């Protein structure tokens, strides 16, 4: 029986192996990242067409920003477990790596993807819609906490739908009701970060709510994942 530090190191090693494997696969095909980029760009284009180039108020900008992010997460992020199922590599993974390490690896990978999507979206919003960042630190904190919550929810739900026999657009249906609390806080904090006179204390409540949401969702994901994994 290894001691706690050794067990911890082994756990991290396993999780990192899964993450590296995901990154390598992604690097070879660049499937998910291309999909996400195209999705973000085309939805942005639609938004710009629909609203014209006139000045858009920060509340609307914040809402649109997060709608684009959440929709692209729902479209592009459910794939990683699905791919295992389709390629028949699931059993191999099940035998070699314990469930929690698999979840940690996949979660980290999804986090990387979401952050990539976020940076693209924010830059595109600044360029195309004249979004002006007043409080960069607040915006970064909001995006970071939001992405952790988003990644936890999408990863577990992605694992759920990978088991379904009729998938269709199942992920958005499952994801959106769950994400509504996250969405409310995150849009409000972003709104604050985009308006004149933004302060940390103005969004303190929203940020703690986001920490709480991210923590609860990820804890629950780790608790529940073993039931999905050992099926």
């Amino acid at each position, binding site marked *: 029986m290894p001691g706690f530090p050794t067990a911890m190191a082994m756990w991290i090693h396993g999780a990192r192996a899964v993450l590296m494997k995901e990154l390598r696969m992604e690097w070879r095909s660049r499937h998910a990242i291309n999909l996400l980029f195209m999705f973000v760009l085309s939805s942005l284009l639609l938004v710009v067409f629909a609203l014209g180039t006139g000045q858009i*108020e920060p509340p609307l900008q914040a809402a649109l920003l997060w709608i684009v992010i959440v929709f692209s997460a729902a479209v592009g992020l459910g794939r990683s477990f699905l791919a295992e199922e389709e390629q028949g590599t699931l059993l191999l993974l099940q035998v070699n790596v314990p469930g929690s390490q698999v979840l940690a690896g996949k979660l980290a990978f999804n986090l990387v993807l979401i952050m990539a999507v976020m940076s693209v979206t924010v830059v595109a919003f600044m360029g195309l819609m004249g979004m002006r960042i007043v409080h960069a630190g607040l915006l970064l904190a909001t995006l970071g906490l939001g992405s952790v919550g988003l990644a936890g929810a999408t990863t577990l739900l992605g694992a759920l739908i990978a088991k379904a026999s009729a998938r269709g657009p199942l992920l958005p249906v499952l994801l959106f009701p769950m994400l509504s609390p996250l969405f409310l806080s995150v849009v*409000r904090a972003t709104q604050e970060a985009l308006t004149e006179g933004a302060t940390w*204390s*103005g969004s*303190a*409540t*929203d940020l*703690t*709510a986001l*920490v*709480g*949401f991210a*923590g*609860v969702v990820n*804890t*629950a994901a*780790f*608790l529940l994942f073993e039931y999905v994994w050992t099926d």
Partner: protein
Amino acid sequence: MNTKKIVGFLLIIGFSSLLLLNFGNQVGGYMNFEEAESAGASAHVVGMWVEPETFRYNAADNIFSFRMRDDAGNVRTVHYANPKPANFEDAEQVVIEGKPGSDGVFVADNIIVKCPSKYNDQRALQQTGL
């Protein structure tokens, strides 16, 4: 119940209780008159009509007007292009949706009368002898 589950439940309870922290944020959707004026956009303003300066209705122009004080104490005249809403004088609070107009008048598109959601009433209680 193994240790992992217990730790998980404690974490979930801990993170959930973060919600009870409130750093004095007000309800977001509402503004006071000054904020609405600086934003210049359509806004929700909560307040109370000012008692002595009673409301009046101009039937010719179909404009109902009253003086209203918001939470921050600003008083403005509000115009509403409809007859007096029902229940208006019973309101504990009024929520108006609209835009700041010219010369300090606030033009309301919609008035929601926030009434005492009471199932009890001192006056009525005495009358029914309860």
